[in-house]
């Protein structure tokens, strides 16, 4: 027994490489991102950058980010929930489910730049749908200007990855609805509508709103699709960080990227905390 503490010491050493790695490439960059906003170029503490978060231009971009995230999260959550509903009753191990899972994974997590291309090919100026509507019906979707490369243009591509993410995150909760509950409700004389309103909806609500928050966070933090579509300007927060990183002249304030990063992190932490609180409520029903 005497060697036990010593052994434990060696085992602890085994954790060191991972700890060092996470410290260097996760903890340090995160802290640096949060802290640089509080310093000026000479390394002196300043609140100028943080004050810049109250600037009208910055507030407008945060508002655009909120708007895009809220709209696509709501749309994605509703459409995704409908898909999950349709998936109920299909075989969990079936071919169809595997295909939908894999497609959802690809679109939700690895699309980025490629989704921007897909939408340029679809509703770009020469896009398949644009040309079809124009040639067959005489409808010009860009009558009031080309919106694809502006903030409204983000809505369709974002929905294209939000819906699959909803399918991935919401499906486990849907599958948690036990058939017995439906049978019990039916024995007591409930119609299917009553079952949905009085049994299924209250059980699914925390998970639905939790997933909605996750979708919001996902849209709020995504950069690649927007960067590939919008090459000029900084209409949403991630693009403003790009502008601040690439040129130091935004608003004439240096280290603004750090302040913007801090603003993003605050939003993300609030959203993700609410998400995990809702997630805990969800897990009650998934045992």
């Amino acid at each position, binding site marked *: 027994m005497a060697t036990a503490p010593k052994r*434990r010491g060696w*085992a602890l050493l*085994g*954790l060191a490489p*991972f700890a060092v*790695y*996470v410290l*260097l490439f*996760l903890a340090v*960059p*995160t802290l*640096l*991102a949060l802290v640089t906003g509080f310093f000026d170029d000479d390394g002196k503490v300043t609140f100028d950058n943080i004050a810049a978060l109250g600037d009208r231009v910055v507030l407008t971009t945060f508002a655009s980010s909120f708007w895009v995230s809220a709209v696509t999260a709501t749309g994605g959550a509703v*459409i995704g929930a409908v898909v999950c*509903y*349709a998936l*109920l009753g299909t075989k969990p*191990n079936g071919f169809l489910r*595997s*295909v939908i*899972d*894999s*497609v959802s*994974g*690809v*679109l939700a*997590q*690895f*699309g*980025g*730049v490629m989704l921007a*291309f*897909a939408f340029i*090919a*679809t509703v770009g100026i020469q*896009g*398949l*749908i644009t040309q079809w509507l124009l040639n067959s019906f005489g409808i010009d979707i860009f009558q009031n200007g080309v919106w694809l490369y502006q903030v409204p243009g983000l809505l369709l591509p974002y929905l*294209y990855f939000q819906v699959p993410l909803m399918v991935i995150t919401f499906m486990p909760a849907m599958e948690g*609805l036990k058939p017995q509950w*439906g*049978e019990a409700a*039916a024995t007591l004389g409930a119609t299917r509508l009553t*079952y*949905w309103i009085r049994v299924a909806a209250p059980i699914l609500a925390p998970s639905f709103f939790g997933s909605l928050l996750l979708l919001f*966070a996902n849209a709020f933090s*995504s*950069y*690649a699709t927007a*960067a590939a579509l919008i090459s000029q300007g900084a209409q949403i927060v*991630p693009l403003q*960080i*790009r502008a601040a*990183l690439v040129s130091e002249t935004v608003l004439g304030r240096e280290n603004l*990227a*750090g302040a913007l*990063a801090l603003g*993003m992190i605050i939003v*993300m932490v609030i959203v*993700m905390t609410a998400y995990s609180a809702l997630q805990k409520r969800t897990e009650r029903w998934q045992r």
Partner: protein
Amino acid sequence: MSRRLHRVGAAPSRTTRIMIFVVIGAIFAVPIIAMVEFTLRAGLDGGYSLGHWAAILDPENERKYRALFVGVANSLVLAVVTVSIVVFLLVPTMILVALRFPRLQRVLEFVCIIPITVPAIVLVVGLAPVYAVVVQVFGSSTWTLAFAYGVTVLPYAYRAVQSSLGAVDVVTLSEAARSLGAGWGTVLVRVIVPNVRRGILAASFISVAVVLGEFTIASLLNRQNLQTALVQVSKSDPYVAVIFALLALVFAFALLFIIGRAGVARSIRRAP
């Protein structure tokens, strides 16, 4: 009385289900079809041809597409290094925690989930100074980017490995092996790893897919990978950019599909 009246529970009727799948499936297929259609366009005056696909293989275009091939090569190297980080750094740590420090399980999970809350665009702000140091130590080769990618894949890799690791009783297994005279090395390589092989495989595949799709960090740290090359090439030759984007999407789909089916095969075998 018809069967419909007796239907209870949440599942939709067959008609409803098919209608939902057809409508939403059709809408989601449009952008992919548009991509395929775009790559087949012969020119501005209309008509279709396989010209743009054939052009990729034409040696004459090698210089034109060099950035793209460099990007693909870089991304593949990054994928290999990132998977190594997952397999040789994350997996041993997770096994060690499961065996000797069960109390640290929650801490490890928390650390591995953090990258979801810290978006890549925020991480990159702090990574810029870190990479100023990395360049001095390891040089400015592209593979060093894998250190950052190792962090971005943490949540996915952790979940994949944990779902396997949580399903086996590693403590009992390792005690059994130890009491039969196995050293720790043997326990790790011949007892535990074979049991969590599927999780490790899934984690590796997901990591490859994430690395191939990564744009944010590479682009803002001025490195070349597949995605930054796609954006660059799309400005001069959008057709070939869309072709490569399609291929990358199909490849990522294949990786995830294989993970999914492997999981199914295993759970069927396990069922009594």
